[in-house]
């Protein structure tokens, strides 16, 4: 997909004025966060599970090479294949090669963010293989030529009317505005596709080193049909998904559903281990795991290593005031919200994605709900520092920070300045107590009023309390 991260500000401005998008985003606020908090309240050990999940991920990362080789050995032992891919191009090419080996015309796909990351659909299409998305949200987006705006609810930016229109146009059936009817329509349309596909591609939520299994977690059952009916099953996934044992996978499953949708457990949790066995009447004859790196191995040992703990639950974006206001497309690439603001600069470069780690209020909500306690604000700050040290931030920002540093290092001057600006703002605000417009700060005051400072300055309060 086309990268629009450098235009984040413009994207956000348009998003804030998009009535349809704002209506759709409105559903988010009362949805996932409320359901998550109910589910967490029902699991008294949730905080301990988070601690254990965090520690376990740290242990895995310290031994990542060993676990990956163990995983590979067990996949091979069970008759499957593992392909290591450094770049998105490597991964796309490998997948196409496998498709060509079995002379594939159509490929069904379960939901996979890694496949978005490597831009797989475009690549397959250009090379004569038709990819068919089967997750309801992804299917809607594919019909529209659209792409996901959320990592687990890809069509969250759309309203019922949008779905109704595109189904009417593409399915050539009478227009319906009943979600139940629309879902039934998608079900019927995709039945034949499931059966007719030559290859099924899914992602993986986790890879189990002990058994060489991959697991997918879905509510619809599309992933299961995708990986059971065609002759070849390809798992496209990334290197940080490996866990040691089934017990360890279980720890993360307990965290994942609750953090993501607020469910006690997702409807289908399915382990795939190699191809069908002798005597099996169904299941794929070939099993491939495509392991994508795309910059992750370079994060090991770096200041961003903690990001590799991420289990892609989406809690950070569900609770993010910025994501909630501008939606996922504003971020301009595959991964939106706080986790995306850390990952995207790693994958497409800070030069392109510099605005993303700046698009945060640092309210800390993301870190407070992260099941594996990733310090997302800290990691975004690292990117800001990186951007600053590479002289990538705009001149106005650099001068502003430079100016602030000049005063901050001179306390008497700083106090004088703060007292005088305090007075100035109060005069500007007058009796109303808030300011409609501040020169040179239109970006801030266009969308809201600036409240005038109240009470005494910090230093004068500090002094008077010290005296008393």
């Amino acid at each position, binding site marked *: 997909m086309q990268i629009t991260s450098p235009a984040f500000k413009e994207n956000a401005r348009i998003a804030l004025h998009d009535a349809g998008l704002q209506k759709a985003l409105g*559903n988010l606020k009362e*949805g996932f966060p409320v359901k998550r908090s109910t589910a967490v309240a029902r*699991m*008294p*050990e949730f905080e301990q*599970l988070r601690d*254990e999940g965090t520690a376990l991920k740290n242990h895995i990362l310290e*031994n990542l*090479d*060993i676990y*990956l*080789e*163990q995983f590979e050995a067990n996949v091979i032992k*069970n008759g499957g294949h593992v392909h*290591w891919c*450094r770049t998105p191009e*490597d991964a796309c090419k490998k997948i196409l090669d496998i498709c060509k080996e079995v002379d594939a015309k159509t490929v069904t796909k379960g939901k996979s963010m890694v496949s978005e990351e490597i831009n797989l659909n475009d690549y397959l299409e250009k090379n004569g293989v038709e990819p068919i998305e089967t997750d*309801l949200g992804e299917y*809607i987006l594919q019909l529209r030529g659209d792409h996901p705006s959320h990592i687990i*609810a890809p*069509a*969250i930016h759309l*309203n019922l009317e949008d779905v109704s229109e595109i189904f009417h146009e593409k399915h050539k059936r009478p227009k319906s505005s009943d*979600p*139940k009817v629309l*879902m039934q329509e998608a*079900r019927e349309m995709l*039945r034949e596709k499931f*059966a007719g596909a030559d290859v099924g591609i899914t992602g993986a939520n986790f890879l189990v080193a002990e058994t060489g*299994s991959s697991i997918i977690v879905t*509510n*619809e*059952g*599309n992933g*299961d*049909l995708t990986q059971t009916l065609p002759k070849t099953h390809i798992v496209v996934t990334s*290197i940080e998904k490996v866990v*040691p*044992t089934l*017990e360890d996978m*279980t720890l993360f499953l307990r965290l994942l559903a609750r953090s993501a949708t607020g469910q*006690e*457990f997702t*409807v*289908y*949790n*399915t382990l*795939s*281990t190699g*191809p069908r066995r002798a005597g*099996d*009447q*169904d*299941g794929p004859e070939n099993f491939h795991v495509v*392991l994508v*790196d795309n910059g992750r*191995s*370079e*994060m090991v*040992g770096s200041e961003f290593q903690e990001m590799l703990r991420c289990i892609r639950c989406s809690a950070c974006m569900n609770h993010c005031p910025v994501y909630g206001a501008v939606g996922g497309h504003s971020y301009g690439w595959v991964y939106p919200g706080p986790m995306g603001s850390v990952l995207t600069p790693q994958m497409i470069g800070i030069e392109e994605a510099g605005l993303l780690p700046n698009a945060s209020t640092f309210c800390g909500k993301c870190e407070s709900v992260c099941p594996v306690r990733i310090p997302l604000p800290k990691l975004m700050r690292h990117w800001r520092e990186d951007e600053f040290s590479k002289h990538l931030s705009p001149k106005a920002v650099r001068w502003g920070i430079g100016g602030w540093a000049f005063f901050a290092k001179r306390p008497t001057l700083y106090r004088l300045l703060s007292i005088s600006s305090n007075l100035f703002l109060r005069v500007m605000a007058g009796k109303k107590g808030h300011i409609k417009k501040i020169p040179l700060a239109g970006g801030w005051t266009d969308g809201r009023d600036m409240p005038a400072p109240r009470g005494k300055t910090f230093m004068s309060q500090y002094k008077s309390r010290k005296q008393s």
Partner: protein
Amino acid sequence: MSKAEILGNIRRGLKRGEATQDQKQAVANRINKHARNLVPQRAQLPHEQQVALFIEMATEAAAQIYQLESINDVPKTCASWLQDHQIDTLVTASDEAITSLDWSSATDLACVQRVAEIGDAASLTTSFAGIAETGTLMLHSGATSPTTLNFLPDNHFVILKRSDIVGPYEDVWQKLRETTKGDLPRTVNMITGPSRSADIEQTLQMGAHGPKDLIILLIND
């Protein structure tokens, strides 16, 4: 080539070369121990209460549960449900528990043993276990239990013996390892209620791509 580069990057990040024999052995030992992480209190209960919890959680996940005195009650229960839903064919798995059932009372019902096909209205399978913690069924593939039966038909009947209900997930991993001698079947399914999606306006709709109804036949054994 890619593999060496990826592993090389990881090792550089970890500030070491290829892991030593001791480091590899430590990881192998950790795997072989199958140690449990924190297991929530919720499902650590006497068996009778695990059964009650399973029923409560599966019902919450919108599964239908019929408690039967004997496995011999399966044919008439299926037949009556299917008749109510105007379905005349049932596709079944072929494990012994199912092949030994007597369907002679279900005169209007055609039972066929095969993999599922598009258009099948109902299937019947057994299950490997029930997990009380979240009301979850475990099924796995095998010569007599094709996976398509769990996903393609519109309605899925699952036989579950009360004695096969365990508390937490960890108990079922142990049971699975013992039964399969450590070699996992191609597919292991954990199923909690019927298929659903909230992809249209965050509103939950039942019956996406998998079964629209999941009917658990809980056998008193």
